[in-house]
């Protein structure tokens, strides 16, 4: 096989984004995907924020297979027998440019790959990259099924478990406290049913996050995303907490119990589960990121640990698309100088630093530690629900003043830690 300028490993969002841009620039690029087709191994919750990617490949987004544009954001605190939701609806979200879209990753990437192929970039599927071609630590291509494919640069877009990041010595051993496992079901429902049940207009969507007793004291959350004609329903659990949970519990038991909650059952009633999937994501922010480049190699998307959880918002797909595009830009620069050494590829990191990507990761660098507070998943949702129950109660006995109810509840032992924790959140 003749030498190519760039080999991209993985036809997920980040890989395809890089391939698309390189093809537009007329640079020879080969994308190698291990799945049966691009998207076969792609999973998201999920929701993509649109504004950060609006100007990257803008001609594409008109026709992209977005599910629903999100008009309602709901945060639900969950206790054993009750829940308290804060629902935010914004009229601004109803019109263009849309703030965010729910997506189905496999569907999306299959479509994206076709657009990339149309631009002239070659994508081969069913091929797993086994090894890097290493020449004294410098990456010179990949080995696929025993064949050597030489390349000036390898863009590792091979996901959160990136084997290439490890083989290139860019990443340390994976630690349980740095990751979370998401498990989800896609449940078919007609668009009319979804719009009726969630009080949405045509093609409008909702994103709902659940935190509290559903994760049995473990770091994590439940999520619900409305797609065109299905709901993505799932849970995320910190892998360290999941590994240490006593008694042992499986992620699918947690998901099932979540589905059986009275708040959830009516929403998915009559729906047929059509897919069950799992995906690991980085929860360690910038501290857990691998080195992003080396001689002849760049890491993008999940392979670069680019997912961010700041409690209220969860992001990854916008980072994937933009990091792929910036990696492509760096390759274009390197090609002009015919120099793909680390000294030139550092330009990729510079571009990331100038963009919202590393800026946001630095702004929110304290979030992983602060959000790993077990009280956020145990006591506080419970506290909020109890407070609400007491405030709303009208019983046989005379009702006390609301202010008395609140003060009594605040005398609770949690108040001091709540104040301390709220104070620590100034760093998020």
């Amino acid at each position: 096989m003749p030498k190519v300028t760039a080999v991209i490993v993985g036809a997920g969002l980040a890989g395809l984004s890089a391939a698309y841009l390189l093809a537009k620039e007329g640079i020879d690029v080969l994308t190698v995907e291990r799945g049966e087709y691009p998207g076969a191994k792609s999973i998201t919750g999920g929701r993509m924020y649109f504004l950060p990617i609006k100007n990257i490949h803008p001609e594409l987004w008109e026709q992209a297979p977005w599910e629903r544009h999100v008009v309602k954001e709901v945060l639900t605190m969950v206790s054993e027998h009750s829940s308290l939701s804060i629902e935010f609806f914004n009229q601004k979200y109803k019109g263009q440019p849309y703030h965010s879209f729910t997506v189905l990753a496999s569907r999306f990437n299959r479509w994206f790959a076709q657009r990339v192929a149309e631009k002239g970039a070659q994508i081969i599927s069913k091929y797993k990259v086994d090894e890097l071609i290493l020449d004294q630590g410098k990456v010179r291509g990949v080995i696929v099924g025993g064949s050597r494919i030489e390349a000036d640069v390898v863009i590792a877009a091979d996901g959160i478990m990136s084997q290439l990041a490890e083989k290139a010595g860019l990443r340390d051993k994976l630690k349980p406290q740095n990751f979370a496992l998401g498990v989800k079901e896609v449940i078919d429902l007609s668009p009319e049913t979804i719009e009726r049940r969630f009080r949405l207009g045509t093609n409008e969507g909702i994103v709902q996050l659940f935190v509290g007793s559903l994760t049995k004291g473990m770091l994590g959350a439940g999520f619900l995303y409305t797609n065109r004609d299905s709901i993505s329903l799932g849970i995320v659990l910190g892998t360290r907490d999941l590994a240490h949970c006593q008694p042992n519990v499986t992620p699918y038991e947690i998901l099932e119990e979540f589905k059986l909650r009275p708040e959830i059952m009516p929403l998915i009633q009559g729906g047929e589960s059509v897919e069950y999937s799992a995906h690991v994501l980085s929860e360690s922010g910038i501290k857990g990121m691998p080195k992003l480049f080396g001689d002849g190699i760049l890491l993008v998307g999940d392979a670069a640990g680019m997912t961010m959880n700041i409690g209220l918002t969860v992001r990854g797909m916008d980072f994937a698309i933009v990091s792929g595009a910036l990696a492509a830009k760096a390759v274009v620069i390197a090609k002009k100088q015919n120099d793909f050494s680390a000294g030139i590829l550092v330009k990729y990191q510079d571009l990331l630093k100038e963009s919202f990507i590393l800026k946001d990761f630095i702004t929110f660098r304290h979030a992983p530690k602060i959000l790993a507070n077990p009280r956020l998943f145990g006591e506080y949702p419970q506290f909020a629900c109890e407070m609400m129950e007491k405030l709303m109660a009208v019983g046989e006995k005379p009702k006390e003043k609301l202010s008395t109810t609140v003060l009594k509840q605040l005398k609770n032992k949690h108040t001091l830690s709540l104040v301390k924790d709220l104070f620590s959140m100034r760093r998020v």
Partner: protein
Amino acid sequence: MAKVNIKDKLALDTYKLAKESHLKVNQELCKKCEGKCCLSVCPAGVYTIDEQGEIRIKFEACLECGTCLIVCTHNAIEWSYPRGGFGVQFKYG
């Protein structure tokens, strides 16, 4: 805790089954492990333990998330993705 037969969940998904397992364990290292959390963390129920105390691997069910590799503190798991074109194939994602 809700009773779930994981087979019902996995039956929703399409797989192209390889002949050989892409996952292996070192049984000697596994015997030293008390927690054996691989048995419960896997979203596909790949790992079970038999009467002889050996870990059995149902690689056919694997959803390729990587959780087992991340949580195994004994480095007992030899982990890789399945052969190109094999394993689970998501349609929705």
